[in-house]
């Protein structure tokens, strides 16, 4: 992802170290680091915050209402409360959503094709990620329709 962003920035005339300074912060899966990182970026007075993942977007939203935030992939931004609606997001956030509940439903259908006899499927979710509750609720009917029990 970083290579893609860097390449596109260069194409648009922004060269890091030249006319662009990027303050990168990585939580490496530790959600508790995201809020302080977002607050640090606000203190540094960056002009734009890019986020990867739902939790990073939520942290950025909690940290600022004025600095523009661009999501590079987050769970459903409406159902996680990041934006008011897709048509009129409002606030200072825009970007790309993974629409993950729908993708998870499709993934389960594919799993059913791979393992047609499976009746018990273990599901691992991150309790600290707000999209998890949305996905659980949205995929429940899919599991039922496939005759699969989540364990």
């Amino acid at each position, binding site marked *: 992802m970083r290579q893609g962003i860097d390449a596109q920035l260069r194409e648009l005339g922004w060269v890091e170290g030249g006319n662009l300074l990027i303050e990168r912060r990585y939580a490496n899966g530790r*959600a508790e680091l995201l809020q302080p990182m977002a607050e640090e970026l606000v203190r540094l007075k960056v002009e734009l915050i890019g986020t990867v993942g739902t939790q990073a977007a939520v942290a950025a939203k909690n940290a600022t209402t004025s600095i523009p935030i661009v999501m590079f992939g987050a769970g459903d931004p409406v159902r996680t409360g990041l934006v008011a609606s897709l048509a009129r997001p409002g606030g200072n956030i825009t970007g790309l959503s993974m629409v993950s509940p729908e*993708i998870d439903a499709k993934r389960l259908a594919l799993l059913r094709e791979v393992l047609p006899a499976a009746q018990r*499927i*273990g599901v*691992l979710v991150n309790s600290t990620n707000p999209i998890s509750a949305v996905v659980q609720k949205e995929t429940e009917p899919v599991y039922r329709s496939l005759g699969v029990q989540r364990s």
Partner: protein
Amino acid sequence: MIAVAGESELENAVAEIARRRAQALVVSDDALFYVHRVSIMNAAQGTGCRPWSRVQNC
């Protein structure tokens, strides 16, 4: 369904799913699971699962 809040809970969570005799393991899109995907695969294989790309057949 097993909910985890951090890396330290991953191994036990996979073991618990195996104890419940799940026949497959679904891991949702999440930074925690992406960063620790190798640990999850190793934990699942330790329970006798055969790895798939995103879904593991236990």
